[in-house]
């Protein structure tokens, strides 16, 4: 760790809170988001969606709609060349079967959730497109549905898919849990419920497609995954090299733009009409139809020794996949791997299942299955500590994983685990306790820790590539297929290139997220982009630097190791300098390339048998600890968060300001999850399809989050960084629940922790008071 500090002082750009180039664009609204785009002769698209969660389509006639003036085309399933989008997870199986998730582009005979797309329209104006949607003659015959995973798995339940309602199941079995529980000094049992949650980014799903002059179908949209160009090509049944996806700077993603959204529809409509087409989902459509975060029921039996050491965890997880598989099996895998928390536990049994229902589909969302478990394992640990009269920081110190420890699934932790330090610092950051401002107001504090993988599952053999090149004037171009979801992904790449190549940030142009023109770098998901694309740019820039310095060495008759690149000059140890443009001219003369394409490969592995604990699942993990101080109005149950501190070991902060922003933003999303957010679904009908019913926190609902950035100097990313996109969303719900118990003695086990639920837990709704 001492190394990290000394290296840091030597860094010129990395490690400094530099202003992001995209922020400069965004404050003057120069950034063209996906919907801020128009082409001459452009059509506008709209989708007909099912009003029912479970029904047969008995009639679907489009002739009247198609004949309306200004309507270019109306499409149904039979018009789609290949009506299935698949998500393949190579090499992977679960207890149920291969993880091949499929989804219809447009519904065929059945609809399985409210909002499922049934038909598509493109027309001269949006108003006409909507009128045409209204004019489609569609009739449904409702069929029995299932609306909870328990109901879906009950004998005789109506099958959502012919394969049955159990989508996936994972198990972990380490040690003898029954015996360990029998021998434990304390056993705490708990059942926890987490809710359906929406990504609720402010920019709805949107894009524009056109056929470019080479006949390539080009789709410019808001996406976390430009590689979906291949899925679109499959749907259209055209060669994959005839579809290009240009990813815009996103108005937020959080996992909700990881699956296919508008791109298949736009590709279809552009192909069928030959005209540019725009599709922008309304907020209602976005809240209705986009895949959401899985609700879970989590049952825990936790055994601890009198010393506070956790000796056993017996865990049962049940998640709701909604009507289609999407990434549910993988989300469940993340839950399974993280279920026992960032702690040493000798005996662990996990039985995790996810079931199809006729609810809105669920898929990726920030935290990806590793956050529902935090609410359960940190609530359990807190209860154990209370039973034993232990300090919350102390019990975490006693149990924290250490380097060299093995997770229940068999993965060895290879990097430093800063958990005790993080817990201490977060707890201390709350400062002196707030006084209660009235007798009915109780104040309390809670702590919660977590760990979140960064980077993709090792048997997916992840890689990312980047191109870095100098122009003759010494300005630099970075190309990388990395979508920027708003976290400063592109700006971080610039910082890394600037660091290695000695150019100012203002001299760099970065091109990201274009499947045709930027080297592919994979998805902006799984907290992987700084790690993967960052490493790709770092490696590429270093190779380019070596290439250039070899030429400089011969010009200056010096050793390569005696040369540095600094402020657009080559600087020799003896003080001689060579302007970069002179070096670049010499490269041009000598035929030495001034650019380089590099590929970074993540550590790879083979699929593991989780139950047998056979090995590595993720490249590495990011650890965190959050502390909350709350006040509870014991007359109404209203909870107010007075203070909040969030500490994460990020290995190295490439841009400390961006890292703080990730921590603060993630923590506030986590507070929304803990205290107010819920997609309310009754019998498959979503009652929260507007921003006045689906509530996310406002500035007046949350406190300042104190972000504590710890740099252990250990991580697999560039300059030893760890991923920090997802981790901060994990702990808040548990930290709040633990603080509420500290304040009032009431234990809340169901999310969100609304004032009414607190009031019930306090007994305010059963007594006459």
């Amino acid at each position, binding site marked *: 760790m001492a190394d990290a500090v000394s290296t840091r002082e030597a860094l010129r750009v990395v490690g400094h809170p530099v202003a992001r180039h995209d922020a400069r664009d965004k404050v003057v609204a120069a950034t063209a988001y996906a919907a801020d785009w128009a082409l001459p002769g452009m059509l506008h698209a709209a989708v007909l969606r099912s009003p029912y969660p479970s029904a047969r389509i008995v009639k679907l006639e489009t002739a009247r709609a198609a004949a309306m003036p200004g309507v270019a085309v109306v499409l149904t399933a039979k018009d789609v060349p290949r009506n299935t989008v698949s998500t393949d997870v190579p090499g992977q199986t679960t207890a149920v079967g291969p993880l091949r998730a499929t989804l219809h582009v447009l519904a065929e005979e059945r609809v399985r959730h409210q909002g499922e797309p049934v038909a598509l329209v493109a027309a001269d104006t949006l108003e006409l497109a909507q009128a045409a949607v209204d004019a489609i003659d569609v009739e449904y015959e409702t069929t029995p549905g299932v609306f909870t995973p328990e109901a879906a798995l009950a004998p005789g339940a109506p099958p959502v898919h012919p394969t049955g309602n159990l989508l996936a199941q994972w198990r972990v079995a380490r040690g003898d849990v029954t015996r360990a529980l029998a021998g434990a000094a304390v056993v705490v049992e708990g059942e926890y419920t987490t809710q359906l949650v929406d990504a609720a980014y402010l920019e709805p799903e949107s894009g524009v497609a056109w056929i470019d002059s080479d006949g390539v179908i080009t789709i410019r949209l808001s996406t976390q995954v430009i590689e979906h160009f291949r899925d679109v090509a499959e749907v259209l049944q055209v060669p994959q090299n005839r579809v290009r996806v240009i990813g815009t700077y996103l108005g937020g993603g959080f996992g909700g733009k990881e699956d296919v959204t508008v791109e298949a529809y736009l590709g279809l409509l552009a192909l069928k009409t030959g005209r540019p087409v725009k599709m922008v989902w309304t907020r209602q459509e976005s809240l209705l139809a986009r895949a959401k975060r899985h609700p879970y029921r989590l049952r825990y039996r936790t055994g601890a020794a009198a010393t506070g050491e956790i000796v056993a965890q017996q865990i049962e997880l049940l998640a709701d996949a909604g009507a289609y598989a999407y990434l549910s099996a993988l989300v469940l895998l993340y839950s399974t791997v993280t279920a026992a928390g960032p702690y040493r536990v000798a005996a662990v049994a996990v039985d995790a299942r996810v079931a199809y229902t006729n609810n809105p589909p669920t898929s990726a969302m920030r935290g990806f299955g590793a956050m529902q478990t935090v609410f359960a394992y940190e609530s359990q640990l807190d209860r154990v500590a209370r039973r034993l009269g232990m300090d919350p920081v102390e019990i975490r110190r006693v149990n924290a994983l250490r380097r060299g420890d093995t997770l229940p699934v068999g993965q060895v932790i290879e990097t430093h685990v800063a958990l005790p330090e993080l817990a201490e610092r977060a707890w201390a950051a709350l400062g002196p306790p707030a006084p209660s401002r009235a007798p009915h107001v109780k104040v309390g504090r809670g702590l919660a820790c977590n760990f979140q993988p960064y980077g993709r599952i090792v048997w997916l053999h992840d890689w990312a590539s980047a191109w870095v090149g100098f122009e003759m004037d010494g300005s630099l171009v970075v190309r990388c297929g990395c979508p920027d979801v708003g976290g400063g992904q592109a700006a971080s790449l610039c910082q890394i290139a600037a660091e290695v190549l000695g150019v100012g940030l203002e001299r760099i142009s970065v091109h990201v997220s274009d499947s045709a023109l930027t080297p592919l770098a994979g998805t902006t998901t799984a907290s992987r982009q700084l790690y993967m694309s960052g490493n790709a740019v770092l490696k590429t820039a270093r190779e380019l630097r070596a290439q250039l310095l070899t030429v400089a060495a011969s010009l200056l008759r010096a050793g390569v190791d005696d040369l540095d690149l600094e402020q657009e000059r080559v600087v020799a140890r003896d003080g001689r300098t060579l302007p970069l443009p002179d070096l670049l001219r010499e490269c041009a003369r000598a035929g030495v390339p001034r650019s380089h394409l590099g590929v970074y490969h993540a550590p790879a592995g083979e699929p593991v048998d989780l139950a047998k604990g056979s090995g590595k699942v993720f490249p590495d993990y990011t650890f965190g600890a959050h502390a909350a101080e709350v006040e509870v109005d014991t007359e109404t149950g209203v909870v107010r968060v007075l203070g909040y501190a969030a500490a994460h070991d990020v290995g190295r902060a490439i841009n400390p300001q961006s890292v703080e922003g990730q921590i603060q933003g993630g923590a506030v999303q986590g507070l929304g999850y803990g205290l107010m957010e819920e997609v*309310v679904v009754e019998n498959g009908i979503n009652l929260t399809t507007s921003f006045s019913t689906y509530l996310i926190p*406002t500035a*007046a609902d949350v406190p300042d989050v104190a972000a504590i950035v710890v740099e252990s100097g250990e991580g697999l990313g560039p300059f030893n960084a760890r991923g920090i996109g997802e981790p901060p969303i994990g702990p808040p719900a548990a930290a709040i629940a633990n603080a509420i118990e500290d304040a009032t003695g009431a234990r809340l086990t169901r999310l969100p922790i609304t004032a009414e639920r607190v009031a019930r837990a306090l007994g305010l709704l059963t007594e006459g008071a």
Partner: protein
Amino acid sequence: MHPFDYVAAETLEEALGLLREHGDEAKVLAGGQSLVPMLNYRLARPGVVVDINRLPLGDISVDDGRLRLGALVRHHQLEESDVLARRCPVLGEAAGLIGNVRVRTLGTVGGSLAHADPAAELPAVMTALDARIAVASASGRRTIAAREFFTGPLSTALAPDEIVTGVETPALPAYGWAVEEMSRRAGDFAVAAVVALVSVDRRGRVDDARVAFGGVADRPFHARAAEDALRGREPTTESIARAARAAREALDPPSDAFVSGAYRRLVAGVLCRRALARAVARALGRA
């Protein structure tokens, strides 16, 4: 949004004529903060939208203890008006709780009353003040007591061809006041809201009390029981608690997908006690 015709009325007579002509097909546009969301979400499909923003209904005046608000007085005017701060401060306190700052820029007193959301602030305030709502149609003008104006969720005693032109109310400048509200999120409609107005006599006894709730019934709820429990008494912690209990016992709020009726009732009782305590403290300060 479905297509409709748009007409900006230049005079009240023209507006009323349009309403008579189009009946149910017409919608009145004032601040637009309730109507336009319904148009955007295609929940309202009027044939014609009658814009009344050009009508001279934007004044605030106080004389002889009577306060007159034009229907087009915006919420931010209630917040910022010096004369209201002196003569009827409960309006400013309530207006500050309405929606967000953008709603308060454009939203109007008349629009809020005519929209009649049961959880809205101004209907509860007017109920507490015992205001009279001035309405007009092509056949004439009348006033309706606020306590009779609201007839259910989003429904009022207005005839289809009538519009709200203003409100007239006693200003009650000697009264202490308080508005207490709880919502699921900052700026949202109230789970429960209470408006309390209290005056005290020279001996420090409660001379008059006015209490109304929002969010606990299908319309604003006038809490007579609480008023009766307090009038003529010394405003002690106990008498205030008793009054709040009396108010709560008269409530039977509905449940919805987000909040149960029982919880609304609990919150209403607590907020009522707090509002009364605050209003009493202010009344004693003013007396």
